């Protein structure tokens, strides 16, 4: 089986879609652009989204940056946050939801505070990334603080197998080093500073 059904988050009614067992109210109008007067938006969030909108000839271009900002503010693309972004951008929440569901880095469900992306694409998996991903699952799969995901090629095959911790690339990591990595993150440190991408001195692997 490609997908393990027990690991797919589902609602009580058994579906991944919220409210699928409730009949649609056909007499109700579709949700329009939220009313600014009655939708409070945190000032900081509004300022950021407005700054993004000013960069583009079309305000809709700011959709992804705005959703990133919502995610930073609330930890995920919460319905409340999407309505607020829609208020600022003068779009319907449905438009932003449609965009958010397309992209892998925008989360429609609450996730752990630390994003750990394990690259499991070809180059990394040739060097043992599947075992590394399994080790992360074993050690922290049920830890609500971590958002552990196997990810498409992260573009760092020179340090394969590698992971991205909240955006910082580090590698290579062996499966038995996983507890050390997790402990470092828990205590707010950078695991393996010498193997962090940003600390690497040389491009040339022969150097």
């Amino acid at each position: 089986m490609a997908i393990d059904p027990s690991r797919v988050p589902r609602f009580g009614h058994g579906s991944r879609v919220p409210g699928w067992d409730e009949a649609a109210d056909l007499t109700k109008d579709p949700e329009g652009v939220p009313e600014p007067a009655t939708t409070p938006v945190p000032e900081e969030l509004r300022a950021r989204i407005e700054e993004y909108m000013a960069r583009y000839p079309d305000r809709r271009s700011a959709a992804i940056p705005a959703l990133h900002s919502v995610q930073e503010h609330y930890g995920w693309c919460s319905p409340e946050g999407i309505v607020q972004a829609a208020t600022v951008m003068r779009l319907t929440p449905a438009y932003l939801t449609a965009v958010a569901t397309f992209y892998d880095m925008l989360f429609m469900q609450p996730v752990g505070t630390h994003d750990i992306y394990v690259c499991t694409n070809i180059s990394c998996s040739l060097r043992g990334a599947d075992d590394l991903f399994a080790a992360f699952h074993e050690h922290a799969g049920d830890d609500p603080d971590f958002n552990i995901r196997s990810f498409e090629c992260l573009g760092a095959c020179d340090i394969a197998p590698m992971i991205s911790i909240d955006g910082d690339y580090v590698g290579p990591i062996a499966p038995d080093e996983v507890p050390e990595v997790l402990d470092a993150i828990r205590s707010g440190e950078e695991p393996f500073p010498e193997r962090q991408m940003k600390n690497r001195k040389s491009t040339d692997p022969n150097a």
Partner: protein
Amino acid sequence: MTETLLLKDIDEPGLHTLEVYERRGGYEALRKALGMSREEVLHELEVSAIRGRGGAGFAMGKKVSFLPKGQMDKYLVCNADESEPGTFKDRELMQKNPHMLIEGMLIAAYAGGINRAFIYVRGEYQLPAERLEAAVEEAKAAGYIGERVLGSDLSLTMWVHRGAGAYICGEETALLDSLEGKRGNPRLKPPFPANQGLYQGPTLINNVETLYTAPVIIRMGGEEYAKLGTQGSTGTKVVSVSGHVQRPGNYEIELGIPSRDIIYGLAGGPPEGRSVKLWFPGGSSAPVLTGDDLDVPYDFDSMAKAGSMIGSGAIIVADDSTSVVDVALKTAKFYRHESCGKCTPCREGTNWTVKMLERVDSGEATPMDLDIMAAVCENIIGNCLCVLGDAMAMPIGSMIAKFRPEFEAHIEAARARAELVEAVA
């Protein structure tokens, strides 16, 4: 090769700051370009015959010349959504030398009469995006980006736009949709972006590495640049070598050198006692080659003749300890996940292929399934709006064609194992 052009100063500490970049001769090519006429700059780019480094290999100079002339909003989009599995050249360049990209974009914008530029960086690239954003701010403060750059008639705005994790957004029209704030679905072509691209305006889209080459071409002259490499594939190229090699990394090579020199010479080849079983010459979308093809020269035309492609310049090597079924399954699963779902052959074809490969892996398949898989691949190629489906079909098709006995043996062995388990239970 005697000297590198793109990776020359790459390890200079602090190269990502304007101060160090200028000390190393940065923005001199821009000054030189602005001293020339737009036509002369375009001519240099055309004479250099540089082909796009993103995957399709289209001549850059030609692409610029397709832009309509005249006064209107024209757009330059730098495709920094480097997601092709095995490719990490753009990341290295952007995180260490962001100013050179800006310089290249300024030169391209000048040649094409462009006034708005965007850099679309993939969401996962945090460090490169931060460095680029800082570099753009520095360049704005220093007067390289803005109104009437260095007193010339080039005026340009530039923004770094961060994506949110979607392989398909590396496809140029999907990237434009994503940049317009939509789901990243590819568009029907024609109209091509040069006529109707971003916000329906004329748009030039180039890969990061292609734009990095613009300052090099201006500095040394198009004709001189064209002397490097082969006739059909001029210049140098940064190749990312990964997988089962001893020294994975980025190497700048002159196009046309034997592939063996890259895999064995530069990257050290597979570990002791192992040999190359199969390799992708240009990212996981390229048809695979085997250990017998190591002497194929690494350039666009020779690779095409050998039945594969340079693509993004990512060489992924798998040694003889690798099961080809595993590689095929991994590849197919990736494309299934990344298919945007707009076109049926790709959306369904990638899913069917994964299901059939899983049957192969578990021993439930028959050799006939291999024929069905090959037929599915044939029905994907050329039948979608973009080449994502083709990018799965080509490597999978080539693996089945080249390693069919191994697929068949794998089915037999897996079935025997399954029967044994059943008998014991």
